């Protein structure tokens, strides 16, 4: 699988697996997270991302494989002996303790002296901008404030790694976008190694140094936001992150791709043999529409089925002559789109904007 080796990783997952009876939740994951890095596990529900986080946290043991925290194997250690901080989706604050007591809990367990503990608790609450609310109980706090307490509680113990399990999904949209920025800024400031779990591609793209796209218990692709978006390795990744046109084709002997009756000169990965079934993936914002056939790249003839006006963009859906459907996103730059339902058009893209992916059954998209 994709290893993503890093020298001296703060966290290393080595071939870890987790089975529940005959169900395989995590099917062998290798992942290195560098000191201070923010890595996101992104995938649909049931892809194994939360299970992977639980394995790192030590909530249950892996079926196979080893986990290294700062170079030390920890797979056999219970959660309370690992040096981790966890923020849960439901925050899991202790309802019978005040915000400050919640934050102090980890220090109390570590037998930190009370004067020092009080100072660190105050610093942590200040860090998440809750300085004045230390004596409130969780029930007296709003969702966003609870989230901040949970973050302070996980950070105050200076864990080797911070684990965030969909911490934003219970917040409303505006607050969610605010917290994205804030979590990243705190993470950068403290330089704390972080693993973040989400199903929200927007969060993943904005927040992460690197994203591991997970599907069916495996990492399908690991890379920074741009490389995941620009160069998806599989059909699953192409469809899960952003939106994508996928056209079915075959690799020809001349190392081009045949779609319908036409052959196009686009770059085919070397491991694909002539005759291999492939998908040609084109982002809708990289595709173009024209009345005349462009000379290079991929160009497919069709008829406009429908035009959707979306304000900042127009979305043009095209029935292609070879039987598939495609769509193009046109920026609303003031010029007339010049197309309407029934127009005969060419849907095209420069060769550099086309990616050839191995044909595969559609992934487990929710």
């Amino acid at each position, binding site marked *: 699988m994709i290893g993503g080796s890093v020298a001296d990783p703060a966290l290393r997952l080595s071939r870890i697996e987790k089975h529940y009876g005959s169900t395989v939740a995590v099917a062998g994951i290798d992942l290195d997270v560098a000191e201070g890095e923010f890595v996101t596990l992104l995938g649909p529900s049931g892809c194994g991302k939360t299970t992977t986080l639980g394995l790192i946290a030590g909530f249950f043991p892996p079926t196979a494989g080893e986990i290294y925290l700062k170079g030390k194997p920890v797979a056999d250690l219970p*959660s*309370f002996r690992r040096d*981790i901080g*966890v923020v*849960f989706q439901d925050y*899991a604050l202790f*309802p019978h303790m005040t915000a400050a007591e919640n934050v102090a*809990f980890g220090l109390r*367990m570590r037998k930190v002296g009370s004067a020092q503990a009080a100072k660190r608790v105050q610093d942590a609450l200040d860090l998440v901008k809750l300085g004045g609310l230390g004596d409130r109980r969780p029930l007296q706090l709003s969702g966003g404030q609870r989230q901040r307490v949970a973050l302070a509680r*996980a950070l105050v113990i200076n864990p080797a790694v911070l684990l965030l399990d969909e911490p934003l999904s219970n917040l409303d949209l505006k607050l969610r976008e605010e917290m994205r920025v804030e979590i990243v800024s705190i993470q950068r400031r403290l330089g704390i190694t972080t693993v973040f779990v989400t199903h929200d591609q927007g969060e993943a793209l904005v927040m992460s140094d690197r994203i591991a796209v997970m599907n069916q218990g495996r990492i399908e692709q690991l890379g920074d936001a741009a490389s995941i978006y620009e160069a998806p390795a599989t059909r699953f990744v192409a469809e899960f992150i952003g939106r994508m046109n996928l056209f079915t084709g075959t690799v020809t002997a001349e190392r081009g791709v045949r779609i319908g009756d036409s052959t196009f000169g686009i770059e085919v990965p070397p491991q694909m043999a002539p005759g291999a079934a492939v998908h040609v993936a084109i982002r809708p914002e990289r595709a173009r529409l024209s009345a005349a056939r462009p000379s290079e790249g991929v160009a497919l003839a069709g008829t406009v089925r429908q035009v959707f006006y979306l304000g900042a963009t127009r979305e043009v859906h095209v029935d292609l002559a070879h039987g598939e459907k495609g769509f193009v996103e046109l920026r609303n730059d003031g010029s007339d789109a010049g197309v309407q339902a029934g127009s005969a058009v060419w849907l095209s893209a420069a060769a550099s904007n086309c990616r050839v992916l191995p044909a595969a059954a559609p992934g487990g998209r929710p």
Partner: protein
Amino acid sequence: MNFTRWRANHAPWAGLRLFVILVYVFSLGPILITAAVSFNSGNRSFFPPRGFSIRWWERAFAPEWLEPLWFSIKLGSLTALAATLLALPMAFALHRYRFRGRDALLALTLGPLMLPSLVTGVGLLQLFELLGLREYVGFTALIVGHVVICMPFAVRTVAISLSTLPPNLELAAASLGATRWATLRHVVLPLIKTGVVAGAVFAFIHSFTDVNLSIFLARPGEIPITVKILGFLEFGFAPTLAAVAVITLLLPLVLVAIVERVSGLGDFIYGDRK
């Protein structure tokens, strides 16, 4: 306001009011009548009482009645303590783990709720004799029997309060460095405290008011107040008995009132916590 609307608005409330009044009449009425009877001045139990005297109350505070009362308090307290201590780990296991025999354990724990305690009493008596433990019939056998029939209450209330715990609290505590014991002590127990206290109170009351089981396992000198009252009834209902009954009734009532004040016992009866 016309009549139809008046009826639509008030008839259901009038019906509910009547129902509530009936509930009060039939639950409080007998108690008030008993209390009144205890102040009769004559030898017979009249209602309304004829004359006024507190001589039956003086008799009720004689050692003949205070001893079984004290015996019942001891029995109830020890039963409540033992039943709660046993219920805690059991409710925890039932709540937390899915293991082989879980359903069987659940049925065994809650079984005595459905079994007439009369049957349990006969069964226990025979068991003690079969095991050659005849000499333990009395206080020891009563403790065993009462724990058996009272534990379901404790298991149930503890289980209810465990099920109200937010799911990730224990994991959160573990991630912050708390051992299992520390998690139990600092997180779980403080949050299920009310359920534990409620379970103990229910166990005490059930033990204190039990007669069906106790009648088989008591022996002279080791008699709970309920069995003593039943025995006395053979000679007819004297006003003394009315006084004793009121005392016996007040004790659990006061206990419930105190606990309700301190910890909101009602939540467990009316299921607000579920």
